[in-house]
């Protein structure tokens, strides 16, 4: 070997070793690298001492992009057991249950009395009492327009150290459910405001079982145990969250032992995880997310109720549900809302019946006049466009399956998988959509109203009504709900509304999708919640 080749090889080998051995701390090392850095003072030192000898759990999550301050849309804080709200959504009944509150009493149409839990401290050691809760809610209303719109609060009054009274400007029969919003997580308002923008972690302003110490959005979130937690000392030293947006990588990282919990795994990934020694999947078995098609009432084709009903009959949605949400990961969605939220035995969706579809199309005046297999009327072929976006793997599968079924009854179908915001453009007849249908504290009226575009929408403007469905029939049905606070009464109203939207084929639900978690066998005390509101709590641990 020549001298030059030896030198070249040596340099390359040295370069590789140098590069491979370059020390670099995980996540961020440089000053100012993290958006929110830890207060390395006495607060974290104390918890770090107490947290020694306990294991740290590592979780792979899809997104880590919201700010930790709840009022800035900080859903990450609630998911990651950093923050808590007055009420939380039950994992079994999907109704609100007390969390930092102890009870809620509807004392008058516009007034609720809320009992506050004793013995709760913020991470900075300050006591969470009624005054602190009042300040927190007022801060949320001041800084979060969504929170202000949702609550419609007139005044908040401190009755005693553990009681507040909330007076609203409109009747709020489901106020406890509205108080589960992550933006309304109870925060030490004075400390958060004093810390200033971008320095929220240093405020120690949350109450959850884990204390954030370092957060780099889109990369990682590290927390340590809150040993003063009101529910008891957590069994973990802390939880590390790593953003792993790629689903395959998340699933493989779990199987490789790099992470202990993989949030949201695919049906195929679930099979691999269950087949792999040392890992398994967990789900609550309740599908709270819905895969559906919006029906566009403004493009002409599907504005005709006969064609709309024909389309509903032509698509075997139950078979498609088996593809996009196989057993264990979801179930066929006959109605908009899952049974766990509201069961309506008397309401039946239009089932798969291609012959009925052909008859309806014939009644609508369509015939195959040129023998090309596609129906036409007035010289125009019967053609629809199915839209969707690729981030949810279910949507292209659904669209292609439906395309074949619709073609079978003589409807020419084009699939347009582009971008979710296209839903706002008049470029489609059916548009695939994936979203949670358990919002507003699990109130069935809230959710049906939101999707049907009524004024009961969270924003009050019906912005979710992408199909421009004329919901005027629903207005009278939903109107009494403003004064009905008992759950059964609201379920009756929701069922009546569901009957109308189902009859109108206002949406075509396909599957209710479960939250499926990949979990290491070492993980203990993990409770799979049916929503993505709460990934962890103070009970989750790791065995040796």
């Amino acid at each position: 070997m020549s001298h030059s080749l030896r030198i070249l090889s040596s340099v390359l080998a040295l370069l590789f070793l140098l590069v491979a051995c370059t020390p670099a701390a995980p996540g961020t090392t440089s000053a100012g690298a993290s958006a929110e850095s830890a207060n390395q003072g006495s607060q974290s030192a104390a918890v770090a001492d107490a947290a020694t000898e306990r294991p740290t759990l590592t979780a792979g999550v899809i997104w880590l992009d919201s700010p930790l301050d709840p009022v800035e849309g900080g859903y990450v804080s609630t998911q990651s057991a950093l923050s808590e709200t007055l009420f939380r959504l039950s994992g079994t009944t999907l109704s609100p249950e007390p969390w930092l509150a102890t009870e809620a009493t509807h004392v008058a149409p516009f007034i609720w009395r809320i009992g506050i839990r004793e013995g709760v401290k913020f991470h900075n050691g300050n006591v969470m009492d009624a005054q602190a809760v009042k300040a927190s809610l007022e801060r949320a209303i001041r800084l979060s327009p969504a929170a202000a719109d949702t609550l419609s609060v007139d005044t908040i009054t401190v009755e005693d150290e553990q009681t507040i009274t909330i007076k609203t400007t409109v009747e709020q029969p489901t106020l406890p459910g509205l108080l589960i919003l992550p933006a309304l997580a109870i925060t030490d308002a004075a400390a958060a405001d004093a810390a200033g923008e971008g320095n929220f972690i240093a405020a120690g302003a949350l109450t959850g079982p884990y204390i954030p110490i370092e957060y780099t959005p889109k990369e990682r979130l590290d927390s340590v145990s809150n040993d003063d937690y009101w529910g008891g000392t957590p069994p973990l030293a802390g939880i590390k969250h790593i953003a792993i947006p790629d689903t395959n990588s998340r699933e493989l990282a779990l199987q490789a032992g790099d992470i202990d919990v993989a949030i949201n795994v695919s049906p195929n990934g679930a099979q691999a995880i269950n087949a792999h020694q040392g890992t398994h999947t967990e789900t609550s078995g309740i599908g709270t997310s819905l895969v559906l098609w919006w029906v566009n009432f403004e493009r002409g084709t599907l504005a005709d109720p006969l064609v709309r009903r024909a389309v509903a009959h032509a698509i075997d949605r139950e078979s498609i549900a088996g593809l996009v949400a196989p057993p264990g990961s979801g179930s066929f969605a006959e109605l908009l809302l899952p049974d766990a939220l509201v069961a309506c035995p008397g309401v039946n969706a239009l089932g798969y019946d291609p012959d009925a579809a052909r008859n309806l199309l014939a009644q609508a005046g369509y015939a195959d006049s040129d023998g090309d297999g596609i129906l036409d009327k007035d010289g125009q072929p019967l053609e629809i466009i199915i839209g969707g976006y690729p981030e949810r793997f279910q949507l292209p599968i659904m669209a292609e399956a439906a395309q074949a079924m619709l073609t079978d009854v003589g409807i020419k179908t084009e699939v347009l998988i582009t971008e979710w915001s296209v839903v706002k453009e008049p470029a489609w007849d059916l548009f695939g959509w994936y979203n949670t249908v358990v919002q507003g504290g699990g109130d069935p009226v809230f959710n049906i109203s939101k999707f049907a575009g009524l004024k009961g929408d969270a924003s009050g403007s019906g912005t979710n009504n992408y199909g421009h469905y004329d919901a005027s029939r629903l207005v009278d049905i939903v109107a009494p709900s403003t004064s009905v606070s008992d759950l059964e009464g609201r379920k009756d109203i929701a069922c009546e509304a569901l009957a109308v939207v189902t009859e109108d084929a206002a949406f075509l639900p396909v599957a209710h999708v479960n939250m499926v978690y990949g979990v290491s066998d070492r993980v203990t005390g993990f409770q799979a919640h049916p929503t993505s509101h709460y990934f962890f709590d103070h009970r989750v641990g790791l065995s040796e």
Partner: protein
Amino acid sequence: MGAYLIRRLATLPLLLLGISAASFALLNLAPGDPAEIVLRQRNPAQLPSSAEVAAMRIELGLDAPLPVQYTRWVSRALAGDLGQSYVTEQPVAAQLARRTVPTALLTAAALALALLVAVPIGILSARRRGSSLDAVARLAALVGAAAPSYALAYGLIILFAVKLSWLPALGYGSAAQMILPAAALSLAPMAQLMRLIRASMLETLGQDYIRTARAKGLSEQTVATGHALRNALLPVIGAMGVHLGYLLSGAVIVETIFTWPGLGQLIVGAALTRDYPVVQGFVTYIAVVVLLVNLVADVALRVADPRLRFGRGERFRF
């Protein structure tokens, strides 16, 4: 050489302007409203109203005509301000700077690995042309060039992390965590470099001066490594700029799969969320890097090969 360098440097601003203008236009042609995406990021539980979206468009400066938006961006970029991320609200330049080190480490490791393997095997393959070693090397190069990096990345994770438990599947911060992503990223350039070196070596070994060296009675080893190698490696220097561009684009996929906190992971997230300032800043930044590396490679080539230093009408001076 000085005039050449000045000429090349003078073209850089024009190239950058063209690249940034093209990327700016393409980004704005893509469907999706960044204003709405930002609002959804801030409050995923609630879709924004039209009024909120309109207000956000004004806040982000998206209500101005496209040429005005571009002009504003260029004037700020010239002052080193690439804007703020719509999503994280952090300065784009700071994000790019922070993410550069992990990507630089990964691409350097991948390039070093590719050269370490490609150079000796390319030379051996050329010297033993037609042998079984040559056949295996050529087949491996073909497979390596054809294999998609994402498939290779998943394959490496399944084999070395899941099945054998030798290496971590993801992460950043230790030498062990670098091995799999570097290997996944290096395979394609390794294969291409191997083929390039083999072909170049074969061509060089057929030159007259090599025949002269052999006629002088030098051993085949000495002929190959002492006389042929330097000239055979010249095309590799020229190819470095191209391969760096490939490595940076390959890093987009590899970093995403291995959760490597580099520029690739940043750009994927930014593209999915229509974070235009980050995407625009990234494209410009990478353009600068690739153009400069190509310039360095060309200059290095001229240093290594005196024939390239003299244009038409120039003469060697003895």
